[in-house]
């Protein structure tokens, strides 16, 4: 059953909000109201289809769904895109908004405007979208919709006269919201007779259908059997099948018409040729002007990923290649470490992205991985005039060869109740932040804007921020380029040997304090062994901090007679397996956590 549509009755919109304000739950209610999923198949956050999304209760990947809604006896096609709220995945928001005419700006009635609310609104405004303020969670006892509406008007300058109050939990206000979507969000206005012009706004790999492109058709249409061209690569493909997106049962169609969204099946073996942001057009009658497209998502954080079992390197490469099919933001290149063997330097969008990737690699590909502490990219100007990029602290040249080091900075935007401003300013000072702006948005909400070295915020800043503000402050950041820093490489020596995978780059003035905290943290993590293990921090050849793990005194069970031998053997085998999960560095066994230990040290 393919729904014939004229652009008149199509509405394309995204749902945007700060993390956890209820986007995916709101999408559930909308889907239900439209009857697109039977009660039996309905589940919470239906559009969060990945296991990790379900377990963590967060959206990682934007999801589209085509819905039919009837208003005043007329059928409308609603194309809804649910987006992630977490800052790591904000590029998903950008590309979703590029395919929409409008957006629902969801704000939690008990929380108000947060950092990602603002960040996402700005993307929407840049894209010229119609915004409908939706105040969610009005069922909560501490909901204060009036305050929140005023806040939106004051902080964002968005007219909130025409808003909707809803509870995605109870379903209150959903019908009214749908009507408003139809009334306020403009219908697409493409040229139906122009040559095909469609934006690829997502692509992924399906084990049965191959590489798929999710497109928004701006002009003309895409038809089954048509030969199309991907404008970026100039490659031509035949359209084998077309589908409307749906989380449970995508529906086949003969064509995707002007203003619609849909999935294009071309039987491709790799998503390589289906770059997000590229334009699809007709091979024989191409459009003269491709859609501008987007900047590809750029990784900010880099870490080494190493298989614990050294013979699993190729397996890891395969796994990364497969994961990349569905995660264009993932970058990686082989590297090797004296301590850890062969692995990959992997680029991530942030710490959450890194956690998610590592977890998926381990779970979906059955690998045991060691991740080294994440780092940012440094630019180094050498004394011989050469400029190099350093993604791995151990690659930092010898100090005598360094003229200048530049580190990336971000603009950090923090929204906080005013009682925490003092704590936050202290934290940001410790993190070498420079205040750019401080505004009272109203009598009790403050906006802070700081320029901060990215190194100081990508790792543990978010957790710190949440803990010193009891969860009330929110935070967003965007890169603003490189600035010179007085930085040094801090090495860690275990039993006298430098363990390259543990090296970090730190501001010179903090080196001693960091070094001491780091060796003490490692002492907690490295279990006692047969030999005493010296742990030292050094800069070049100078030891700046030291401690040691005492040698083990006893590890044996008291009794082992005829009846105990089998049991005892099994116990040892288990212990052996446990030790296998550690990394042997010389004669020292170092647990996986040690390689991330630097994240846990108190700065």
């Amino acid at each position, binding site marked *: 059953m393919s729904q014939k549509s004229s652009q008149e009755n199509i509405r394309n919109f995204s749902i945007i909000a700060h993390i956890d304000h209820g986007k995916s739950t709101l999408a559930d209610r909308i889907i239900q109201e439209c009857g697109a999923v039977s009660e039996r198949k309905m589940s919470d956050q239906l559009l969060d289809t990945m296991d990790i999304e379900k377990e963590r209760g967060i959206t990682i990947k934007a999801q589209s769904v085509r819905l039919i809604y009837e208003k005043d006896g007329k059928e409308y096609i609603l194309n809804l895109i649910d987006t992630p709220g977490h800052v790591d995945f904000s590029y998903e928001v950008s590309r979703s908004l590029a395919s929409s005419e409008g957006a629902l700006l969801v704000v939690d009635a008990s929380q108000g405007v947060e950092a990602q609310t603002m960040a996402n609104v700005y993307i929407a405004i840049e894209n010229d979208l119609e915004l409908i303020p939706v105040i969610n969670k009005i069922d909560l006892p501490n909901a204060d919709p009036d305050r929140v509406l005023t806040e939106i008007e004051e902080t964002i300058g968005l007219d909130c006269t025409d808003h909707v109050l809803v509870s995605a939990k109870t379903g209150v206000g959903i019908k009214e919201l749908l009507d408003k979507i139809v009334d306020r969000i403009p219908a697409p206005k493409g040229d139906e007779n122009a040559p095909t012009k469609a934006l690829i706004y997502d692509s992924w790999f399906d084990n049965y259908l191959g590489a798929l492109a999710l497109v928004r058709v701006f002009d003309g249409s895409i038809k089954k059997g048509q030969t199309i061209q991907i404008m970026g690569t100039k490659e031509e493909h035949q359209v084998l099948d077309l589908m409307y997106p749906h989380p449970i049962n995508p529906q086949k169609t003969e064509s995707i018409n002007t203003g619609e969204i849909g999935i294009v099946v071309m039987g491709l073996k790799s998503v390589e040729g289906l770059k997000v942001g590229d334009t699809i057009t007709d091979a024989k009658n191409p459009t003269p002007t491709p859609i501008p497209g987007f900047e590809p998502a750029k990784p900010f954080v880099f870490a080494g990923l190493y298989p614990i079992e050294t013979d699993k390197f190729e397996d890891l490469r395969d796994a990364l290649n497969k994961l990349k099919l569905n995660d264009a933001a993932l970058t990686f290149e082989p590297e090797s470490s004296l301590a850890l063997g062969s692995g990959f330097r992997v680029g991530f969008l942030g710490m959450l992205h890194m956690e998610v990737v590592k977890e998926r690699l381990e779970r979906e590909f059955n690998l045991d991985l060691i991740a080294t502490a994440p780092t940012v990219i440094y630019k180094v100007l050498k004394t011989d005039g050469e400029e190099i990029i350093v993604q791995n602290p151990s690659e930092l040249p010898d100090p005598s060869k360094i003229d200048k080091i530049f580190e990336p900075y971000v603009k950090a935007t923090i929204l906080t109740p005013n009682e925490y401003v003092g704590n936050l300013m202290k934290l940001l000072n410790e993190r070498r932040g420079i205040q750019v702006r401080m505004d009272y948005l109203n009598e009790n909400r403050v906006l802070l804007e700081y320029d901060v070295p990215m190194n100081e915020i990508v790792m543990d800043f978010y957790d710190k921020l949440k803990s010193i503000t009891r969860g009330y402050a929110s935070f967003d950041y965007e890169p603003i380029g490189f600035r010179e820093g007085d930085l040094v490489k801090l090495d860690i020596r275990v039993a006298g040997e430098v363990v390259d995978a543990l090296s970090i780059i730190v501001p010179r003035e903090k080196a001693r304090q960091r070094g001491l905290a780091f060796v003490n943290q490692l002492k907690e993590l490295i279990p006692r062994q*047969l030999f005493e293990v010296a742990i030292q921090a050094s800069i070049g050849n100078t030891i700046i901090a030291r401690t040691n793990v005492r040698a083990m005194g006893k590890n*044996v069970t008291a009794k*082992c007679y005829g009846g105990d*031998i089998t049991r005892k*053997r099994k116990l*040892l085998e288990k*212990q*052996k397996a446990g030790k296998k999960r550690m990394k042997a560095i010389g004669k020292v066994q170092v647990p996986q956590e040690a390689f991330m230990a630097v994240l846990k040290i108190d700065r």
Partner: protein
Amino acid sequence: MHIYIHIPYCDSKCFYCAFNSYTNLHFTIPSYMKSLTKVITKALQKNKQKIATIFIGGGTPSVIKPQYYEEIFAFLKPFINNESEISIEANPNSATLPWLRAMRSLGVNRISFGVQSFSDEKLRYLNRAHKAKDAIKAIENAYKVGFNNISLDLLYDLAIDSKELLEQDLRLAFSLPITHISTYELTLEEGSRFFSMPKVKAQKEELNFFIKETIKSYGLKQYEVSNYGKICKHNLAYWEHKEYLGFGAGVVGFRKNYRYYSHKNIQNFINDPFFCEKEVLSKEDILLEKLFLGLRSIVGVEQKILPLNMQERANLLVKEKKLSFTNGKYFNEDYFLADELALFIMQN
């Protein structure tokens, strides 16, 4: 040949103990002993080998009247000679003078008393059925009836343990005519009362070293993690990975490349004393066992049984003075590190 005979009865259940023993089934003793005698006679019917060691353990072998042992010994007699070591375990409350005398005259030449401590408070805490003075009396009686190879067991690392308490326990132990002592660090065994009470274990590592040093100062040599003095040949056979036969409920035997297990439940054993379940050991299993058993005792590990990569690891330990190497064998002197050393060698 080495023989283990199990007596699954006790007068009280000690809180730390998970051995196969029962306190309320004494009425089954006659039929149990009958089944036990039956398996032993059947198993040894065609035997021609001499018996090097017998170990009667428990449970509490001293709850069984001598008459039951007589029948078994009558049958075993032909295989026993002067060199045979015949050990029995005994508890202070049930090892009476007549019982001890009877055992001695049956040819038992080694006796091991479950003393655990000479502190009445600690004994109560462990739910033992005897008091300190009972233990002293029983050991003196054993000596009196002619036992000249006497051992006692002590248990330590309980929350109430201190160096002072253990020093007192050892002083009393060495005031008695003993030739051997076993000192066991408490293990929280699944199936025992203490298992779910982790706080009863002191986790004081230094107590281990204190006990070891103190016993050494009394002149007994450590030859296994928990054992000092005149070597018990039966237990040594386990650590040497020798074959042994096991008889009774819930026993284990070992032959060639398999272990076998009898019924644990007393009634099932009585009904079907010949039942046994086999566990086949792979070459790797046996290698691993020889490794950790050899390192926890004076037995040592033959170099030639180890694959090359393990030899390399072992040689590294020799270089670091954690092991010594003589006559083609690796020897460990710090038995308390045995498992860690085995794990180190196994890692590759």
